[in-house]
């Protein structure tokens, strides 16, 4: 996937009829220098070219090389500053050897460029022309090849920005062409375009340029788009960091990852760029997260960074190293949060009630508890990945669990199927740390809550507006009209049964399993933890079970349990990344943490 920029500035005209210009090369160089930067336009510095007063042959030859000898292009951006001419056929860019009397053969026709684009088929093409009469390029749109103009899915998208109308001159000032100045203002952030997305496309920039130019008088830019069926990236949005508050007002790791993912696709072949872009996009958010009351927002943002980089861990040692660094950062922060929590729970029994919780806390407290113990349990598993589990703060974890069991016994319950990964991580960590008594107490409380509700727990993807319905149905013990609210099959109940096996509580569970007759269970086991942060993880297997139909005891589940569920990813960064991904996307459980292992106390 490549982004290529061709910037052409023509000051010198050797043949008769065309005056030399003063600032065209300067403009092309400024645009090139800005866009080629990694954190601005991120165009490929090797494939991209800056042409200063080229001849027609020089440009044609180079363009052939760019369009047809570099493999498939993701984005092609062509910038031209110089004389422009228009006739009944179309628009022409005048080059060093263009003859005024024969410009249709000695200048570079836009129609020719469009034909080549149709052949090379870059996914997105941006053409910017800061030249007199450039609005005449609309004439070329009538003759563009069918593959461009058809509008069929997959046909190349083309956006054209002409800085002057067909009958207008492009004005130059001492500081450069006014159109190019306005364009650069948008790129550098001096002009505000929008703050909602991390990248800007040429269409929205064109509208801002058009709004700004009338102030200079006599120049009316036009923007034309063909086949723009998806959001394209012209350059980064310098104002996006300012919208960090938007990202937090409705914090959702998935939405945030959706913003980062498309940007990373353009850097898939450069690990340094991948890391740089993730850092650039999250730096501001991390600074803000540190100032929030929610003490777990900061590690959540870091976790999204890991989720974004996870697909690239397998290919690049540099990304692996960075993910390991992020894992350590998360572990450090979570250890600190454990200290704070231990201190706060001692000082205030009701510390887990939220400031705007209200009745909503009836749903939120059980989730909050499992999230807390889950993140801390994950911290232990990450420490194992980092090889520093011996320094894990067992004492504080024990104290916290004891507090929770004493102060929140009825809130240690299952509300939602999203609690599965947290329980798996918390109880497996507690087991390995030798906190058997705490793990057993918590598992008993959770299992009792499942028995009370007869295994009816909220679906992982329930819409927030339906949560009240779920709570009312749950309090009335009647879901006959709202079965869509319920997780069927449930992955969290599977986690409880697996935990019972790991903790040796089979007898307790077996005695009550009849009360969950017909409950459907599931365990999604991936075959590629590299893709574990995706919205839909591909491959793998959904291992399904039904209580009372093949599963009458915990040991029946053990016997039918897929062997591959125990396999940890060999790559440690992927192993840690998978654990972290399950914390921010809790509709997946890293089953390998529940594999039989040696308890710390037994080691």
């Amino acid at each position, binding site marked *: 996937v490549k982004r290529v920029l061709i910037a052409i500035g023509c000051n010198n005209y050797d043949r008769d009829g065309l005056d030399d210009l003063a600032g065209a090369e300067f403009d092309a160089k400024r645009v090139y220098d800005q866009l080629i930067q990694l954190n601005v336009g991120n165009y490929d510095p090797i494939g991209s070219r800056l042409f200063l007063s080229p001849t027609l042959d020089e440009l044609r030859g180079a363009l052939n090389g760019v369009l047809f000898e570099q493999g498939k292009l993701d984005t092609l951006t062509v910038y031209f500053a110089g004389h422009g001419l228009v006739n009944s056929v179309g628009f022409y860019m005048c080059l060093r050897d263009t003859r005024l009397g024969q410009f249709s053969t000695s200048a570079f026709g836009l129609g020719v460029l469009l034909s080549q684009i149709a052949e090379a088929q870059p996914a997105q093409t941006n053409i910017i022309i800061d030249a007199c009469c450039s609005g005449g390029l609309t004439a070329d749109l009538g003759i563009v090849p069918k593959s461009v103009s058809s509008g069929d899915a997959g046909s190349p998208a083309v956006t054209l920005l002409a800085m002057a109308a067909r009958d207008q001159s492009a004005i130059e000032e001492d500081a450069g062409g006014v159109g190019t100045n306005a364009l650069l203002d948008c790129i550098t952030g001096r002009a505000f375009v929008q703050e909602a997305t991390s990248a800007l496309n040429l269409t929205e920039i064109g509208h801002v340029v058009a709004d700004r130019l009338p102030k200079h008088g006599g120049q009316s830019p036009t923007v034309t788009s063909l086949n723009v069926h998806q959001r394209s990236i012209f350059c980064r949005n310098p104002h996006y960091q300012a919208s960090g508050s938007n990202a937090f007002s409705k914090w959702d790791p998935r939405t945030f990852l959706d913003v980062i993912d498309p940007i990373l696709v353009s850097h898939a072949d450069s690990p340094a760029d991948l890391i740089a872009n993730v850092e650039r996009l999250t730096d501001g958010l991390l600074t803000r997260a540190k100032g929030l009351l929610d003490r777990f927002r900061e590690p959540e943002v870091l976790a999204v960074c890991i989720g974004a980089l996870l697909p690239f861990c397998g290919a690049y040692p540099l990304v692996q190293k960075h993910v390991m660094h992020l894992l350590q950062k998360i572990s450090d922060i979570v250890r600190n949060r454990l200290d704070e929590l231990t201190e706060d729970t001692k000082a205030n029994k009701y510390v887990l009630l*939220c400031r705007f919780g209200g009745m*909503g806390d009836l749903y939120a407290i059980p989730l909050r508890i499992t*999230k807390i113990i889950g993140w801390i349990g994950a911290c232990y598993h990450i420490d194992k990945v980092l090889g520093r589990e011996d320094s894990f703060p067992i004492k504080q974890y024990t104290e916290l669990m004891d507090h929770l069991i004493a102060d929140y016994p009825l809130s240690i319950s299952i509300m939602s199927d999203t609690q599965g990964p947290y329980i798996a991580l918390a109880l497996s960590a507690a087991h390995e740390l030798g906190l058997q008594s705490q793990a057993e107490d918590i598992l008993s409380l959770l299992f009792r809550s499942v028995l009370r509700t007869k295994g009816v727990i909220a679906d992982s993807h329930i819409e927030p*507006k339906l949560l009240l319905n779920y709570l009312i149905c*749950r309090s009335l013990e009647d879901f006959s009209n709202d079965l869509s609210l319920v997780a069927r099959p449930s992955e969290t109940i599977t986690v409880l049964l697996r935990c019972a096996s790991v903790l040796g509580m089979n007898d307790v569970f077996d005695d009550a399993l009849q009360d969950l007759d017909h409950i459907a269970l599931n365990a999604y086991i991936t075959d590629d933890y590299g893709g574990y942060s995706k919205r839909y993880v591909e491959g793998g297997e959904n291992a399904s079970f039904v209580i009372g139909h093949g599963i009458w005891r915990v040991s029946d589940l053990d016997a039918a349990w897929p062997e591959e569920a125990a396999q940890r990813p060999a790559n440690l960064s992927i192993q840690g990344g998978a654990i972290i991904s399950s914390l921010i996307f809790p509709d997946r459980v890293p089953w390998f943490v529940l594999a039989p292992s040696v308890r710390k106390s037994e080691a």
Partner: protein
Amino acid sequence: MTTESDKAKKSAPRREYFELEAESQAINSSIVEMLQALQRQAISQKLPEDNTLHYTHGKKWSNRTNPHAIDGGFQEHSVEWRTPFKDLVEGDLTLIPRFIQHTSEEFQRQVSTMIYSSIDKVTAMTGNIVSVKEAGSFPAAFLEMLGKIEFGVDKQGNASMPEIHTGTDPKKMIAELEAQPPEYQAKVERIKSEKMAAALAAEAARKSKFKVGKQ
């Protein structure tokens, strides 16, 4: 002794751990929406939706062309409900239906009080008050009441009978009225016919005031 760091600790905002803001706020907003629906339902049980007006601004209203209408103002209805932290921590889900039922019943009670106190004010002003004690019996008071009130006309132009809201068992009152002699029943029917005719005549007169009056 209080140290500076103690003071700083006390003034520092409380730390939160996984706010789950979207979920909590969605539940709380859904409860508010449900209460609003119940309040609308409570009002519609006393006043037809057709006769209910909604204002966006200000705190009072006046009817500038009806000298008999009394000026009104918004009245605040509030319900207090305390949820002890302990109940939330114990995860008692019956809190939600109990809260909704309590709030709904309290709103209904307050709406009823407001409506009847408004009627009371108007009848005190117009003198449209009938006393069973002074009339001598309930049937006599009922007859007197029929004589005093005006019948209305609905939007389809049909005369509408008055609604009777009772504080005691209506079955008992109806039985007492039905047990009256035929002369009493005839009198009631005569008054009803006269009132209906008067209501239709008043409606015709009202409509005739339009530029193109439709009968």
